[in-house]
């Protein structure tokens, strides 16, 4: 588990094109990531560190362009660490997928038309869930699957994660 969140941050660094890699550790039984900085105090928490890295890479647009977009990005980052990571069992996973599916119905990215950090972190967070999803369920959450497939093929995002197969043609509409 600890490796997972550190791997995620290392992948994010690569995606952002950051050259020097930072040092990470984790703390607590929830394995919260910690960024050890040379100057100043450590940064704690996945979304905090991720937002910091985005600034460091001078890609502020990934945090949203307008005040509204920024808020939406922040909201989904929070959703990632509270709802997706904190989900308790199958029912809550289903609620997450259902809500996201509904939300993504008319959207390309989580923040609407622009690709942001929210897409990256929610993608990482959903990866283990999507991996375990049966074909039939992937079809049920078609908007999530579409969005997920889009993000995993977004240049430089997938990094360490194995691709999750999302079929484009439906299998279960009418099985012969």
């Amino acid at each position: 588990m600890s490796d997972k969140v550190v791997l995620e941050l290392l992948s994010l660094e690569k995606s952002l094109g950051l050259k020097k890699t930072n040092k990470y550790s984790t703390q607590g039984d929830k394995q919260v990531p910690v960024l050890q900085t040379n100057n100043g105090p450590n940064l704690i928490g996945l979304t905090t560190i991720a937002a910091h890295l985005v600034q460091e890479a001078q890609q502020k647009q990934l945090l949203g362009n307008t005040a509204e977009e920024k808020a939406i990005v922040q909201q989904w980052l929070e959703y990632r660490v509270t709802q997706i990571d904190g989900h308790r069992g199958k029912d809550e996973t289903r609620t997450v997928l259902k809500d996201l599916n509904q939300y993504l119905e008319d959207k390309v990215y989580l923040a609407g038309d622009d690709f942001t950090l929210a897409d990256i972190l929610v993608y990482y967070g959903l990866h283990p869930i999507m991996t375990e999803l049966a074909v039939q369920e992937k079809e049920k959450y078609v908007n999530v699957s579409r969005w997920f497939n889009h993000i995993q093929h977004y240049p430089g995002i997938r990094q360490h994660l194995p691709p999750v197969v999302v079929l484009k043609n439906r299998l279960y509409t009418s099985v012969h």
Partner: protein
Amino acid sequence: MRLYLTEGNPHCLKVVAAVELTGSRCELQFVGVEERVVPFLAHSKLPCLQLDNGNYLFSTNAICQYLFTLRGKEPSDLTNQWLEWEGTELQTALSGALYMAVVQGKREEAAGALQKKCAYIDQSLMKRSCPFLAADAITVADIVLWGALYPLLSDSTFLPGDLKALRSWFERVCAVAACRKAVESILKGKGLQALKPYLQKQPAPSQRAETPASNEPEGGESADRVLTEEEIGAAAESWSKGLSAWPKPKPIEHPVLPQPNEKNVLITSALPYVNNVPHLGNIIGCVLSADVFARFCRLRNWTTLFVCGTDEYGTATETKALEEGLSPQQICDKYHAVHAHIYQWFGISFDHFGRTTTQRQTEISQDIFRRLLDRDFLLQDTVEQLRCESCQKFLADRFVEGTCPFCNYEEARGDQCDKCGKLINATELKSPQCKICKGTPVVKSSKHLFLDLPKLEARLVKWLEDSMVSGNWTPNARFIARSWIRDGLKPRCITRDLKWGIPVPLEEFKDKVFYVWFDAPIGYLSITANYTDQWERWWKNPEQVQLYNFMAKDNVPFHSVVFPCSLLGAEDNYTLVNHLIATEYLNYEDGKFSKSRGVGVFGDMAKETGIPADIWRFYLLFIRPEGQDSSFSWSDLLLKNNSELLNNLGNFINRAGMFVCKFFEGRVPEMELNDDDKRLLAQATWELRQYLQLLEKVRIRDALKCILNISRHGNQYIQANEPWKRIKGTDADRQRAGTVTGVAVNMACLLSIMLQPYMPSVSASIQEQLLAPPQCNVLTEEFVCILPSGHQIGAVSPLFQKLETDQIESWRKRFGGQQPDEGSANQSKTEAKPAAETKAAVAEDAGKDADPQRAKQLAEEVTKQGEVVRELKAQKAEKAVIGAAVTKLLELKKQLVLAEGKTPEAPAQKGKKKK
């Protein structure tokens, strides 16, 4: 913008305070506690903010930050960190604490639950010596944390007295006018009790905390289980019995035959079609899965017969033979050997690997046919069929291609469309084309025999329901079988106008053979008959035999519906499938395996990588498409090899053996079990039983995790007890080091047995290194001391090798496609290929001038020009204009044919475009 609030909701305190503090203009609207406002969320989520453009923000902290951002107060790393901490850490503790304090009236417990979090804030404040959390002035972080804590901290006796920094910060924020206002509007002067109606609607926190936050599959990395004293006692007792109480492994004597009053397991894996080299997906889908199960059954001392063989009749063989310029029999001989060799390399433990082109196959198929005929389950009908006049033959199945009538896929085969997967009658194809001469076939009628499935439906349904209830059918198998029944059964043609097949034993059908799907499953019977004359003891013995069929999901209809109907109709007390185990598909990296593009690892190439067969087996089984599709990934293979095999399993077994060699001259030391050791034994026993249960249900992938869990426990045990240090200590320490080493090496031995179905060679090496007695190779529900103290072990050496990234990268490149291909373009049964692949393969086969890139471009031009021509015709343009356009189209088509590497004499095809 409009802010939706509800009274008594602590989150609303934060947002109202933020509104007041930032002086934001927004309409406040109070709604009911459970009102759903955000349209895309299934449950009520309040507060929420509706923006002017209609969007919703449903996260309290994001709303607060948004209000601050609008005032030009952007987030900083520190405010972000506080907000994240509040959302993930504080809220978890707080929801429990509030519930205890308000609903259950347990104030002290509530304070206890919050103690740590409060201390954390207190310390942070002291460290920074700022009046506020993130700066010298108030920020969003203060508002959010204040709002969260207010309901509890507003009671000044709630906090223990020593958290002074927190106390003074809290009072400082409380004094802010905006916060006072927020308290007034949300709590209405009722204090903590105002929260009661809201909190009562929330799930009780104790239930929330205890359900594990895990999406691991069952039997996955289980957290430390709570073991009862009884379990621990029982495990210690079993252990002390040693091998004396252990059943002896049953010797295998061929031919294996079912025994009365024993569990008799008959295992088949879908017969691979002979015309191609199997890829990793084919291997994991059938033979490897079946092999693990067969090995497991033998370890359980069940009478087990595992048969398989190549499926050799049918049009695919004939087309392949044409391609390679060999006779069908030569093709079969060649590829049968290829298959047999690959499976042997993978260590597949068939009792017999046969083939379908045998005399027995003919006899048994014809017998079943005659029985069906006698019982009136066959219908005769004339069929409109495509016949190619120039080739002088009826074009069955794969000899014809055309456009799919359902999805318009342009390269559908005569029996099935690879794109939409529907079964097709060749005559339904649009613009059909003879596969051999590319000529257009004509429709001729021909007499054929049909299996009367509707007449057998009632029997089938009854049997199917019984079998599904009592047996172990994978969910996809149940689903597919039921959907076939639901859609209604139709008579199915069982004869074909071909030569390469089993002749139909009737005078008027003497030029015809059985459709390959009629006789292929009969192969299971005939292959067994070639193994033993007493085959009927397996196949006509449903009372004593449990039949397991392993396959990929595309084979389910034939095994669950069509073949059982043949056997039911033949009325000869056949053994029908009890457990139908179907896998989903395995993909390769990002896409599908493709022989023609050289994408993916095929059976014969796995060996060339130098990675041992057992590593392949392990990884394929680890990612077995059980329940959902999965993909093979090189980097994942590296990861699993290096983390699970090398660092976990290999490390544990090697250390256990090394300690025996290094510290105890290779003899297992005396063991005096204490409670820790007994607990470990109980833990291992529990995992062992999980493993047995899962494998009995053929959950092969899940059971593998139990093995890894045991070695994980073992590693922790060694790490905690540090025998390498204790060996240098006092007598008691040395004694302890001995016990730990002895227990560990016995666990290694247990692992070698459990590992045998998955990694037979590794299992054998472990047992060789430990000089484990051969009679230990039985699986029971108990973990006994197999290697007693004084047992001499052999030389210990590492079991696994590290895989390096550059190695993996070079393989990924090598198997990533575009490698030279020997020109085999035919499809394996389990892969549906997109058009481009098959086309490209044709191009490779046909000539050196082929240029797929150019061909693609030309194909697009042909399509465009075709549209131009149609358009002109539709507009009734002048003949000369149309003529010119048509000439251009023909010229383009000619170039296209060349670019595809075909001979230009071949008749140009009508409107054929490429994907």
